C-alpha cells in the first residue's frame, strides 16, 4: 500500500462538495470494449472531472517468464473511471465505465446487481467485442440499452442490421450517439431511464 499520508490528499473541489442532504445514490454502468468511449461518455455528462477507483488483484501467471513462475502470481490493477450527476438535493446518480471482461466485475461488490441498468457502448468497427458483454448482461438479468458511438471513420449500418447482428430483442432500445457530447450522452441515459420505466410499468 502506498498511502502518502493525509497531507497530500486532495479532496473534492469546493464546488464539488455535496450538500449534507445527499444521502440517496443510484448507479448506472457503462460497459464496452477498450477504446469504445466509456470514459468520454462519463466525462461528457459528469458534473465532476471523472475520477478513478481501482482494485488490485492477483492472477496466477501462465508461465510467461521465469520470474513469474517463481512468484506464481502477478498483481494487476484494474481501474474504473466514474462520474456523478446530482439529480436533486437528495439523490445522486453515479456513472461507472467498466471494462467488458466479466472476470473483473466481481472485484467491486454488486457492480451490476446494484445498478439501475447498463449502457452497452458499441463501435461498429468492432461490433463483436460487445457480444460477450451483452450475453453476460442477459444472463444476469441486467436491463440495458445499446448506444452506438458514431466514430467519424466507422462504417454506418442501418440500425436494423446492427440489431440483427447483435441479436437484440425488439424491446431493447438502440440509439446512435456521440459520446463526446453532453446532450447526446444525456439522451442515452434518458433512453435507459425510459426503458427502465417501461419495464417497471409492465411489472405493476
Amino acid at each position, binding site marked *: 500500500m502506498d498511502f502518502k499520508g493525509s497531507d497530500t490528499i486532495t479532496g473534492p473541489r469546493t464546488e464539488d462538495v455535496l450538500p449534507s442532504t445527499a444521502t440517496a445514490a443510484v448507479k448506472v454502468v457503462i460497459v464496452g470494449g477498450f477504446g469504445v468511449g466509456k470514459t468520454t461518455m462519463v466525462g461528457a455528462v459528469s458534473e465532476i472531472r471523472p475520477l478513478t477507483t481501482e482494485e488490485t488483484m492477483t492472477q496466477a501467471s501462465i508461465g510467461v517468464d521465469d520470474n513469474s513462475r517463481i512468484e506464481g502470481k502477478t498483481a494487476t490493477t484494474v481501474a474504473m473511471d466514474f462520474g456523478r450527476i446530482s439529480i436533486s438535493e437528495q439523490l*445522486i446518480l453515479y456513472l461507472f465505465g467498466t471494462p467488458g471482461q466479466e472476470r473483473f466485475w466481481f472485484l467491486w461488490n454488486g457492480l451490476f446487481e446494484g445498478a439501475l441498468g447498463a449502457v452497452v457502448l458499441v463501435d461498429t468497427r468492432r461490433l463483436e467485442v460487445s457480444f460477450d458483454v451483452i450475453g453476460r448482461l442477459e444472463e444476469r438479468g441486467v436491463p440495458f440499452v445499446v448506444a452506438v458511438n458514431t466514430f467519424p471513420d466507422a462504417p454506418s449500418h442501418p440500425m436494423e442490421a446492427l440489431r440483427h447482428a447483435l441479436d437484440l430483442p425488439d424491446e431493447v432500445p438502440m440509439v446512435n450517439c456521440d459520446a463526446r457530447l453532453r446532450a447526446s450522452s444525456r439522451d442515452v441515459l434518458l433512453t435507459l431511464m425510459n426503458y427502465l420505466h417501461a419495464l417497471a410499468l409492465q411489472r405493476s
Partner: protein
Amino acid sequence: MKTPRRERREKLPSPSSPAPDPGSAKGDPERLYVITGGPDGGERAALDLVTMVVACSTPSPTVQPEQAAILRLCRAPLSVAEISAYLRLPFSVVTSLLTDLLATELVESRAPIVRAVLPDRSLLEAVMHGLQRL
C-alpha cells in the same frame, strides 16, 4: 454486414448470487488485499461503490492516518468510490478501513438504492427530470 452474428442468451436461474467464486477456477483473479481491521479477520461491511458515507466526528489523534483522511474527506457525504479515488487506495482497502470506522461509529453510511428493490417509478421519474435539466 460481415461481422459474425451474436447469439442471444437466457437469464441464468440464480440471479441473486451470480458472482463466481473467485478462487474456484484456475486462473481466475483474486483480490490482492483481503485485509480486515478485526483482530481475527472479521467480515468486511457490505459496502457498495455508491454507499454514501459521512463522518460523525472529527479525527482524534488516535485514529490511523488513512482513517483520519477518510474522516476529513467525509465531512460532507461522499461515495465509497470517491473516497477510493481521492485517497488513491483500492476499493477493498477502503471498505476495510470503513468497516472499522462504522464499527466504532465514527462514520455513518447510507446504502444505495438498488435494482432489486427498485420497481419505483417515481425514483426513475426523478432521475429523468434531473437528466433533462442537464
